[in-house]
């Protein structure tokens, strides 16, 4: 169990969600409040360890008096606000956004999205067979991880994790504009010639599998990746004295990838190259 610091006490503010009174601590987002009230709102780009970018617009809700819909993930709850989460208008936007996304990228490795597509009766095929898609070959230029742009929804989480929110390496950025916008390193070169330090924190936050461990990518390609057969063990990294938590994902007695618990108050899911990728010695059974 990890210990979560309580922080300073915050005032509660009152507002309504779908006509029911809600009380949340000051500073909470509408999404926080909805979750506390047991309401499920789909979201892709929101991340528990990062400031929300509200780029995907799947989590939009209706707020009384607002001209447009508002993203629940980033809009803070205000006293007296009247929020409606399941109106026809909000559901319509979510459905279209899911259709737009699913018609333009491969969401096959995005958790939970299949359920949302069904729930909102999204039909991504209706844009026709010629609808523009991001169909690019995965970029494999190093032994640690793979960039598959065909799965990228441009949620900005990897950029934020690599940049000023966590890693401060600034190795990646969004480049280009509009539909042609992509995540890339400087001069759009290979990762090996970039400022990347291979911490893998971008993989940790990627919601779609566009960034993946080479180990996972290879096993998926070979058809041997089987999450149901994997066990997860959280332990302490042995490399240095910081005490980062590692979650070892083990399949057939082999470590297949390493993640880190996001609720750990020290690392919030972040690791360095050694903790994330330096596990081969464990299974060196020579």
């Amino acid at each position, binding site marked *: 169990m990890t210990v979560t610091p309580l922080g300073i006490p915050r005032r509660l503010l009152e507002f309504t969600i779908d006509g029911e009174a809600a009380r949340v601590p000051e500073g909470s987002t509408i999404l926080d409040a909805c979750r506390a009230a047991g309401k499920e709102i789909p979201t892709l780009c929101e991340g528990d360890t990062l400031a929300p970018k509200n780029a995907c617009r799947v989590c939009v809700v209706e707020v009384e008096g607002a001209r447009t819909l508002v993203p629940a993930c980033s809009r803070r709850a205000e006293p007296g606000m009247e929020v409606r989460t399941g109106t026809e208008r909000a559901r319509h936007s979510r*459905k279209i956004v899911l259709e737009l996304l699913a018609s333009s990228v491969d969401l096959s490795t995005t958790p939970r999205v299949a359920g949302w597509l069904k729930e909102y009766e999204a039909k991504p095929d209706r844009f026709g067979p010629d609808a523009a898609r991001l169909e690019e070959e995965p970029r494999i230029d190093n032994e640690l991880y793979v960039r598959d742009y065909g799965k990228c929804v441009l949620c900005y989480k990897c950029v934020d994790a690599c940049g000023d929110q966590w890693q401060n390496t*600034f190795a990646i950025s969004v480049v280009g504009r509009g539909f042609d916008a992509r995540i890339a390193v400087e001069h759009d070169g290979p990762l090996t010639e970039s400022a990347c330090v291979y911490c893998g924190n971008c993989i940790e936050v990627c919601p779609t599998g566009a960034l993946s461990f080479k180990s996972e990518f290879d096993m998926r390609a070979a058809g041997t990746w089987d999450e149901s057969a994997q066990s997860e063990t959280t332990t302490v990294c042995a490399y240095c004295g910081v005490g980062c938590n590692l979650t070892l994902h083990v399949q057939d007695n082999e470590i297949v990838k390493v993640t880190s618990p996001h609720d750990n108050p020290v690392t919030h899911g972040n690791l360095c190259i050694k903790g994330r990728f330096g596990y081969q010695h464990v299974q060196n059974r020579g």
Partner: protein
Amino acid sequence: MDLRFGDSRPTDEERAAVDALLGPPESSWEGADRSDADLRWARGGRAARDRRDLLLPGLHAINDRVGWIGEGALDYLCRRLTVPPAEAYGVATFYAMFSVRPRPATLLHVCTDLACAAAGADGLCAGIESRLGLSSGVSVERSPCLGLCERAPAALAVKAGDPVRTAVSAPATVDDAVLAARAPDSAPQEPPAAWAVPQAGDPALTLLRRVGVVDPAGLDDYRANGGYTALRRAFELGPAGVIREVTDAGLVGRGGAAFPTGRKWQATASQPDHPHYVVCNADESEPGTFKDRVLMEGDPYALVEAMTIAAYATGAHRGYLYLRGEYPRAVRRMRHAVTQARARGLLGDDILGQGYAFDIEIRRGAGAYVCGEETALFNSIEGYRGEPRSKPPFPVEKGLFGKPTVENNVETLVNVVPILTMGAPAYAAIGTGGSTGPKLFCVSGSVHRPGVYELPFGATLGELLELAGVRGRLRAVLLGGAAGGFVRPDELDIPLTFEGTREAGTTLGSGVVMAFDDTVPLPRLLLRIAEFFRDESCGQCVPCRVGTVRQEEALHRIVDRTGAAAAEDVALLREVGRAMRDASICGLGQTAWNAVESAIDRLGAYE
């Protein structure tokens, strides 16, 4: 931050371009030769990072000198400013005017947007391309609106070098455009700004009164024509008094959103956080809009004076004029005006001896319509990608550099000058109760006298078109630009006010009035509008990034179809358009479907 710079080196030319802007480097940490001192001491750090806002000017410097931005040049600029190369690459690839791939030193932008397309831009392009051929050293680029709609079709030649040379050809012929590209220096001069004001010289004008009358380079001439009396009055009234006048005058923003200016100023002035900033949005890139260009080219000191008044009222000591990169003459005129004003104590530490300090920095945009969105504009000035921020917080609270900022466009600011000279009641008496004051309209397309017209709010669309003289049989009028909507020829009695257009189910937008006769193929026009939004979407949010593409695809499918054959795609357009309007982050995505929707609903396109 632990930055890694590649080992690519700038050429001498690239280095000189950057050094001309930033001065020579002082330490090997930022690209100079290594000295003994460097072993113990690193320059850079926070002080260098604070200069991040010089990234855009730096990219311009390289692009102007070399014509494109190479790896070595970009890395050198990053080293000088302590900007991560990946981020700078993201910024450089954001703007249409920059290229990170080699290209010829001379670019000829040929406008193919609405007014120019209607005036035969396609044929012009083809003619220019066949004349220049492949080995001419000139790259011909089809460009979105160049803001020269009154002289359509238009072309802008930019020849990289030291200094960069530009030439505008409008109305362009194949001969003129090719000459402008080959020898920008010997291309014929542009006509004076007043050429774009058919009413020039009319004493009843308020905003355009001086265009064509004063010498745009002469500060004394400006003062002789009533210049700087408004600022003197402002100093008499005090900041709160100025805001009261602006509020009482009923001035609202002229950029399209129509937000009350006095309230915005008051909200900024009352913020406890400091410094405050004034930002003038002179990035008009809406197809069909060119009024800000004409104001800046014809009466530049009025804008300097108006910005000074805005700064004084809101407690700002620094202002940024963010000027469209495609407006070389407006940039030159404004630079000259700012320099002159500074030399004469009308900008600087002690304006008019009142002990008030204010100065203006001019920033050139680099070809991104979305930077007209206020928060995107802040990002652009700060050296980030010009992507809009999510609101709240609003700019009056956290704007440029995270500080309270008042942002107004050129036309809005220029209105402040007559408000102070004539007084709020007299100003408010112009126009209607709900829309006070004079308004500028950019009339173009199928009219005899295209240009910027000034009318009091309340005149009808028909009266305006009568002044301009409709040519041929009117088929439709695009009101408010690409983000606005079409109206029918039988709706010309719509009063040109915010409330009147709203009642008629359309919008005044930025004041674009583009007339199309019945020879213009409507579906092609709509396709061009969709193409514009697809090109200009920043790509940040899904509804806009993918929605604009799907919209264009659907319009392509039905370009030659009507009735039942188009019905399915029209329904699809409606559904996607509704989500874009509801769920996009900024106004670009929210309005991208307006014009197409109005063409379907009001003009019966595809029926």
